[in-house]
């Protein structure tokens, strides 16, 4: 199904108001926005940033675009994300934690009370906690910028699409495609586990270009053949258990209840 074209273009004269928020995460995606050193002034020329805790003090009542980083992992997160959703026209999930729950969702593999006791010890009753959730589990998310940290090129593509009122298409193909375009030797040819065949492209196969294997930070493609993936691993003499541990690094939320 084609997604409805959600854009933030308010009018021909007024600049879109942008707010940036963070939940449970490392703030690496926000840092990655501040890292747009060459483009930051151009970005500011297109929009008004009205709220951004990491970079400024101001607060705003309403926004055209909210970029939201991090997973939801406390009752307070749930309240705040509903509040943000009410105030914004467009909501963008920024990075692996916001899109898929990210590494936070690894805790969902253990009983929540056990996790709470391990992390907070005797003070655990001061810190209510929930299984980690992607934003889309609680509110409607209009667009995703994937990756850990979020892929900068994808952010800029979405940003210009929103400002111009253009359709944004999220890539839904395997990292293998970009590896072939970049003419990389297949990681399996080198005897290593690679999550590229089931992971969403859009990173220009960044890790494999530099001789690394794909760790799946951009999340699974929409229709991953996980049974086929197991056969690939087995036929290459690689450990299925190890590969599934790696798959859960970023996909623990999505793979809940799915077995190797």
């Amino acid at each position, binding site marked *: 199904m084609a997604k409805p074209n959600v854009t933030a273009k308010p009018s021909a004269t007024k600049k879109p108001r942008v707010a940036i928020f963070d939940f449970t995460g490392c703030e690496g995606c926000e840092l990655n926005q501040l890292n747009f050193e060459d483009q930051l002034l151009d970005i500011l020329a297109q929009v008004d940033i009205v709220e951004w805790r990491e970079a400024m003090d101001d607060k705003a009542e309403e926004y055209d675009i909210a970029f939201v980083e991090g997973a939801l992992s406390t009752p307070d997160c749930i309240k705040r994300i509903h509040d943000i959703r009410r105030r914004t026209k467009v909501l963008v999930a920024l990075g692996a934690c916001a899109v898929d729950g990210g590494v936070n969702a690894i805790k969902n593999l253990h009983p929540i009370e056990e996790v709470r006791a391990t992390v907070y010890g005797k003070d655990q009753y001061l810190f209510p906690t929930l299984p980690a959730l992607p934003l889309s589990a609680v509110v409607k998310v209009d667009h995703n910028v994937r990756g850990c940290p979020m892929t900068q090129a994808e952010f800029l*593509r979405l940003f*210009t699409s929103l400002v111009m009122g253009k359709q944004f298409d999220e890539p839904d193909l395997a990292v293998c495609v970009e590896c072939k*375009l970049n003419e990389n030797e*297949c990681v399996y*040819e080198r005897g290593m586990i690679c999550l590229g065949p089931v992971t969403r492209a859009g990173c220009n196969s960044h890790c494999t270009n530099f001789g690394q294997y794909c760790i799946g930070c951009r999340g699974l493609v929409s229709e991953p053949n996980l049974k086929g993936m197991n*056969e690939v691993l087995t036929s290459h003499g690689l450990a299925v258990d190890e590969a599934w541990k790696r798959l859960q690094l970023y996909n623990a939320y999505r793979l809940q209840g799915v077995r190797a």
Partner: protein
Amino acid sequence: MAQYFLEQARVTDFIAHLLAHHTVYAPHHRGGRSFAFEKTSDPEAVVLDYPRVLNAVKKFFLPPREVLLHFDLTRDTAAVPKVEPIDAVFLGVHSYDLAAVRRLDFNFSTGNPERNYLVRRKGARFIGVSYVPDKHHFAGSVGIDPYDMTGCDMFLTKHADGWIVDILTGEGSELAAGFKLEAHDEPKPRRAHFTQHVFVPQARLGQVMEASYDHPVWNETAETCLSCGTCNLVCPTCYCFNVEESVGIDCTNGHRERSWDGCMLRGFTEVAGGEVFREKVAARQRHRVYRKFKYISDVTGQPWCVGCGRCTASCTAKISIVEIVNRLIRDSERDESILT
């Protein structure tokens, strides 16, 4: 058509001779066990004895990514980047990859001619090399042997002590001019031992495919297929592409880019409005194989597969096009014998 001999010890001298006068693209090591065509700067780095390169020479004429247009939205102007003939020598091309270039020449010159491809193709000169078939090559089954010199300006045939050199065109003579080569008149080795075969007369493949539309092999292959598109992207005769436009952060200047695409990818069959007309992986597998052995072949009378074995060698799920086709042949023959 003259024949000469190039001793193994003088191969790098010969490459240096080519480099002194021309831009040379040749196979180099890529990664631990693979090879790729690259621009040559060091004659020692060239590998003439290799099984297959990752991407065929197609990549020079139809680049993986290519800007088709630059535009400026405030001035409402557009500019087409200049495309020039690739004035270069392609050294060490295998016969199946040249056969693939000839097929692309056909695809891109019939109907609406593909200007960028045809312009780039113009300056290319080819020095072919023979190869020893490995466990994936089956070019012999589609009528292309490892010593086939069609389309080459010069051809190097592997010999125990070096290479037998055939000079085939005026361009070939110019490439060799100034480099001393000994005349050679012994007969050449002409035996190619393929271990992979498609067991059917080529003329009947179309019929076999016609009868196999509902064959169970498509669903069975889909079980293991990851739908990653690798088989399309490494195929030397696949030419499908996607076109996307993007703008810079100023929201004013942008470009239109073409990039390789493939029929195994779900998004490839998604059209305006969100309709996907080959939703199932099985249907996409069937389409891929039909594109090589039926649809274009019905028009041209030739298989559009050149037997390089890349799709099988590169498939992480180890899906073999030879096994698929042979199974269709076997089952269609069995069905016929039941009917008659």
